[in-house]
């Protein structure tokens, strides 16, 4: 799979995947990103 194909796959995967899986993933692996965005964007 080329880079373009990988990009399309990633976009498709994130669109399709259940929100709870994304939330669980971000909270465990990208918690810092989440906290910063939420504090700056007042989410």
């Amino acid at each position: 799979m080329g880079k373009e194909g990988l990009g399309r796959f990633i976009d498709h995967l994130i669109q399709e995947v259940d929100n709870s899986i994304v939330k669980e993933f971000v909270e465990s692996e990208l918690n810092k990103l989440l906290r910063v965005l939420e504090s700056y964007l007042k989410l």
Partner: protein
Amino acid sequence: MIILLLVEGVTDKIFYEALLKKLYHMSKEDLYVLPNEFIRFINNVKGLSREEERRRRISILKLKDNNVIIIGCGGFKPLTTFLGLFLKYEKVDVLIKKGLKCIIVIMDRDHNPVEVIRSKLASLNIEYSFSNNSFYLKEHGLLIMCIAQGLLHSRSTDQLEDYVKYIASKHYTSIARALQVLKRVLKEGLILNNYL
């Protein structure tokens, strides 16, 4: 308010764009929603002057009055070069006045982002205070936050691929499970039908 999210490649840009759209229902916007000062800076960066390249490498996401600019810099070295260009930009304070609050730098774990940013700031003679993986640039009142991507396990690639594999395995496992249940139910239905 504007947040600048710098990532290594276009694939990373696609991943974080999709993630933020999914989590916060952010909308994708044209570059021209940004203040002119930002557009002028971006247009002057080598490799971003062509419209086609800008579209490929930059995404602007909007939520209410806030924008997140995601830039796939074209690799690890181009990312550090971009950050250096940005911090040396003579009008960086204007960009901050126009709403820039924070720069988030996401690099593959094997590139050790904290040390890379630390040495970049030292080479530019920029004073900072450091806490919790974030550099606060006193002179500009700007925060640079470092995130190392990649999972911490023995078979980790220390790259974005870890995240994609993790999410894909969760997603496709649940579909496989659903298909198994469906198959079982259909099979039971067939057996029942044979008795009726």
